């Protein structure tokens, strides 16, 4: 009996240790990006273009580029994802084709991000001749987040009580009227959460834009969807692996990493907040 108690103590401590190590890494990543990154941040850093071969000046074009790419990919993926989720949930809950679609969504979610990059390169950059551009990058990133948007929307739609659909149909509303005026408004917070999480994901992705959108050095802002852009995540990578002034560039990379973290984590925090508030309302 005593023995059992000691085993339990050791076991629980080991599990606590696992949790602790995981949290230690989280703490370390946040600590280093904040403490070493905060020094690089200034108004100029956020608003100026880079100077002197990436060793001075700001990273404004990279911030703008990331915003463009994120907006573009959501613009592309949201309508597709909504349509797909609505079809799967509201119109056709079973059947051979629907199973195929479900399977392909699951598998698409598991494709490595660099493979999306290659697909974008072959199809959007070369075949469709969009070149290395915001357009190519946005489409590639859009395909990457499509499964995330679909599953978030599906979950939100399934959470809408069936009785509301019945009430609407019994009043003589058509299926589409019911979806548009009753189901979608009720599912909106859930869908929004999914979209926001997708934004966080897209903003931080690097591999898919390596050969479809990103450029290391640009002193001007993109002027059309066919322009190459700088992007924060790619900029961090490029600063660390290319260029000639490692120390100065590392300092800038810290600044970029901090901005990216604030962007991504800030966006996730909004999503968590919306979800939490929704839960309280439902309770």
């Amino acid at each position: 009996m005593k023995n059992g108690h000691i085993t339990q103590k050791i076991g629980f401590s080991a599990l606590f240790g696992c949790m602790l190590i995981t949290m230690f890494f989280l703490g370390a990543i946040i600590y280093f990006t904040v403490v070493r990154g905060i020094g690089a941040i200034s108004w100029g850093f956020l608003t100026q273009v880079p100077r002197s071969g990436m060793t001075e000046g700001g990273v404004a074009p990279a911030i703008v580029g990331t915003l463009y790419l994120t907006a573009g990919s959501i613009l592309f993926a949201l309508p597709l994802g909504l349509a797909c989720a609505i079809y799967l949930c509201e119109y056709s809950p079973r059947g051979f084709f629907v199973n195929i679609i479900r399977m392909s969504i699951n598998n698409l979610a598991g494709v490595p991000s660099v493979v999306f990059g290659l697909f974008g390169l072959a199809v959007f950059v070369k075949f469709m001749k969009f070149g290395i551009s915001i357009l190519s990058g946005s489409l590639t990133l859009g395909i990457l987040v499509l499964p995330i948007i679909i599953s978030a929307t599906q979950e939100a739609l399934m959470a809408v009580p069936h009785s509301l659909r019945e009430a609407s149909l019994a009043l003589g509303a058509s299926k589409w009227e019911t979806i548009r005026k009753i189901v979608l408004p009720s599912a909106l917070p859930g869908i929004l959460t999914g979209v926001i999480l997708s934004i966080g994901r897209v903003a931080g992705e690097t591999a898919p834009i390596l050969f479809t959108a990103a450029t290391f050095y640009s002193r001007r802002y993109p002027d059309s969807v066919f322009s190459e852009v700088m992007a924060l995540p790619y900029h961090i990578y490029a600063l660390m692996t290319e260029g000639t002034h490692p120390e100065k560039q590392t300092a800038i990379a810290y600044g970029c990493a901090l901005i990216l973290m604030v962007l991504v984590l800030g966006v996730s925090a909004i999503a968590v907040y919306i979800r939490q508030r929704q839960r309280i309302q439902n309770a």
Partner: protein
Amino acid sequence: MARVKEKAIRWTLAALAFSSLIFLVGIIIVLFKEGLPIFKAVRPGDFIFGKFWYPTYDPPEFGIFPLIMASMWVTLGALCVCVPLGVGSALYLNEIAGFKQRSLLKPAVEVLASIPSVVYGFFGMVVVAPFVQNLLKLDTGLCALTASIILGVMATPTVCSIAEDALNCVPNSFREASFAVGANRWQTLTQVVIPAAGSGISTAVILGISRAIGETMTVLMVAGGSAVIPKSFLDPVRPMTSAIAAEMGEAPVGGLHYHSLFAIALILFIVTFVFNIIAELVSRKFRIRLGQSG
């Protein structure tokens, strides 16, 4: 008139719903179309088991065995990190932590999941690599070990949240039955809960592997990049993903190098595809065993 509109909407939605399938098929077609031409120049056996990767030499050599080995070493190393951390954290969260701890730690794990991979890579380069280098007195800290650690930490939240779902599926009556015969919490955990959630936890591990194999930016930044067959965890390595990412920019379109990188991506795609299918099958069986459907 209204009925025609309803039908039109239905068919439009149905058509758009096929987009995921189209993209997946498109990816497969592109990988085959751009990847297969390499096998006109190099025999598949030589490609996969060739020991030398010198794509830009004259004459070039396209043997990806060093890259495959690198991916395997790094993935294996990452598993050693993410399985104990992920499963351990999940067990702690689900079985030990109180409500207050849970409501703090669960979002923290989600935060870890949402950190971009490039930030992980950056952190590996500027913090972990110098640390490993000093600790072990290496020439460079950018090696398979560092990559494994970073990759493992990255995969931890994936493993943790899926394992936690599996633990949540274990009915409380199992636990109560075990307590009722006088087992303590640890015995209940190891002899009742973990076996019951076993295949759910394996799903988590398989998806963690899949995540680690496919991860690009971190290994590109911290694995060291040397394309030779690794002899130890302290060697710099070049996994398949980082070869693609690092070299595609310089490979002339339509050349052998270009095709060989697509062929690597094809192999990568097939491997992750298989892992994802296995994970799905295992988790389906798991749900059936615990008497849940859907």
